[in-house]
């Protein structure tokens, strides 16, 4: 109580305002006796930070005051009102309030009751929650795989429908995606493949020269590009370019309820949205692979010429004797599988978008990661199967 009587002096709370009354502070409070607080001036949001700190320092926060005389208030808003109400045990203890502010005070008091009545939901924390999270995630992976398989089935049905009745395929959409995913990807895939060819040839040349076997660089570039790298890098690029675009396009349409609208008018969204994309990619990726192979070999030829003095005619001659068509065909055989995986995952994640714009971003990321993962998984499966078959 001693502390309170010490505090019972007018506290200048904010700088004296230029406009109003001169030497009086803009907002102030004054402890008249132990339980009665006089407040005055402008109690608005802009003053609330300072006021609440001062009140706390004076030990007056948290319902410590029995009565507040508010007759000297010149302005009050809901933030100031909240401060007053939180200082007293009950709103009735605030007296002398100007008629203008009575409604506000009552409304704020109601809001305060509602806010304190409701216990805060606690955020789950601790080791148990972490463990539960791991569990949920694990279950989640299982569920996703299951759903993806289901979607794969839907796509197979839709594609089979197109194969049986080719005229049902939306030609315009298919060509559009062929252009977007195939033609428009030529520059970037060309650049990438050329650089890969250069890098492979460069590394090969440096090592093989030590054994005076520089000419085998051609074998290395040829087999590596045609059998593995050409198709792999084309697929990774397509996953990043087109798989993500599929997810974002279909995801935005899901958000916009376009997908639901299709369902209500009897269109199958999988057939309308996924089929043209899958067909387009299955056509585009093998073509891109041929292109990437050629450009990659060109990269290798440039390095061979520059580093090993292997001329283009010699390069081509060596290439045709070292690499048979099997290597090329193996690379080409993978392309449609990669393409189907990328397109199906891209569309699947798009359909899974719900709620907000953030979900589109999240699904797009997942789509690219999963598509590249699937491509490498399929590649590994091919490698194992081929070595088992001794090809």
């Amino acid at each position, binding site marked *: 109580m001693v502390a309170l009587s010490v505090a019972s002096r007018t506290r200048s709370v904010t700088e004296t305002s230029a406009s109003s009354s001169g030497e009086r502070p803009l907002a102030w409070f004054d402890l008249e006796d132990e339980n009665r607080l006089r407040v005055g001036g402008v109690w*608005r*949001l*802009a003053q*609330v*930070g300072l006021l*609440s700190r001062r009140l706390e320092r004076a030990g007056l926060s948290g319902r410590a005051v029995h009565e507040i005389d508010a007759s000297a208030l010149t302005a009050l*808003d*809901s*933030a100031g009102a*909240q401060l007053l109400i*939180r200082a007293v045990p009950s709103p009735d203890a605030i007296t002398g309030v100007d008629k*203008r502010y009575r*409604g*506000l005070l*009552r*409304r*704020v008091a*109601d*809001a*305060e009751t*509602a*806010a304190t*009545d*409701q216990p805060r*939901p606690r955020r789950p924390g601790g080791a148990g929650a972490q463990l539960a999270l791991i569990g949920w995630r694990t279950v989640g992976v299982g569920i996703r795989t299951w759903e993806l398989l289901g979607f794969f089935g839907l796509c197979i049905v839709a594609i089979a429908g197109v194969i049986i009745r080719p005229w049902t395929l939306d030609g315009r959409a298919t060509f559009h995606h062929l252009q977007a995913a195939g033609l428009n990807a030529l520059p970037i895939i060309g650049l990438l493949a050329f650089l890969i060819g250069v890098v492979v040839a460069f590394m090969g040349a440096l090592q093989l020269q030590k054994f005076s076997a520089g000419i085998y660089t051609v074998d290395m570039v040829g087999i590596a590009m045609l059998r593995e790298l050409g198709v792999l890098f084309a697929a990774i690029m397509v996953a990043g370019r087109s798989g993500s675009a599929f997810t974002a396009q279909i995801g935005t349409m899901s958000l916009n309820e376009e997908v639901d609208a299709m369902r209500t008018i009897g269109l199958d969204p999988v057939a309308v949205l996924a089929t043209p994309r899958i067909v387009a990619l299955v056509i585009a990726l093998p073509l891109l692979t041929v292109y990437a192979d050629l450009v990659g070999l060109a990269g290798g030829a440039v390095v061979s010429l520059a580093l090993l003095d292997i001329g283009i005619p010699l390069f081509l001659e060596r290439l045709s004797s070292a690499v048979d068509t099997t290597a090329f065909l193996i690379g080409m055989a993978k392309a449609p599988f990669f393409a189907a995986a990328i397109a199906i995952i891209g569309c699947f994640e798009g359909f899974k978008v*719900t*709620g*907000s*714009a*953030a*979900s589109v971003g999240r699904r797009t990321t997942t789509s690219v990661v999963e598509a590249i993962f699937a491509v490498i998984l399929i590649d590994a499966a091919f490698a194992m199967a081929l070595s088992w078959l001794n090809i």
Partner: protein
Amino acid sequence: MTRKAKKAARPEPAVTVRGLENRFGANLLHDGLDLEVLPGEVLGVVGSSGSGKTVLMRSIIGLNRPRTGEVSVLGENLSALQGRQRKALLARIGVLFQNGALFSGLTVAENIALVLKLHTGLAPGPIDRLARQKIDMAGLPQDTAGKMPAQLSGGMRTRAGLARALALDPEIVFLDEPTAGLDPIGAADFDRLIRELQQSLGLTVFMVTHDLNSLVAIADRIAVLVDRKIRVGPLDELLNDPHPWIQAYFRGPRARAAHDAAGSGH
């Protein structure tokens, strides 16, 4: 219902629009439009679809630069201000966009807290308390505080948007079709909420709406956008306006129903 707006001494208008002209391509939307919003009134703005109600609102709050004309809000020209002055004026204005326009990556409480953080130097504790107060004032249950906008229904999203618009205790709020997409009971609740807040917080309300019930229930004056200009007045006055669109609007079957409903309610 038009008490405050009609005090003897004319108070300084909260919003003044003079000679506003807006054009989109060949389409002239506003042509020398004048409007005054008086402090403490609820002004309902109506007009046919595409007559430029939302554009008018966007011109006033500085989101649209008019081709010509002057707009002042609370005595200042928003689009001419910069830096701290602009921020100070923006703090005195609250805007509720259609469907709330909540930031989808933040919870409802965070949406409100963001505004408070941006404009005040308050600590997280008081900010959270004020956010919860605004949630209650907008008529939302407290457990919405931690929810994401995507988890809310349309009506709740509008209310959450209102809570965000009220975060800084603005002097004037702009509402863009707040009751669109609400069921009649929800819309009537919202009207009551606006009226109550307008009275307890002393707000000026600029409300773009199609909802005749809203207009009858809470608007002190109504501004009608016809022929690229504004005709403004209390409902009774507009009822006698001979303009065919105004007649069709206020004398149509839906208008009569709204009027009857309001009449029988008292």
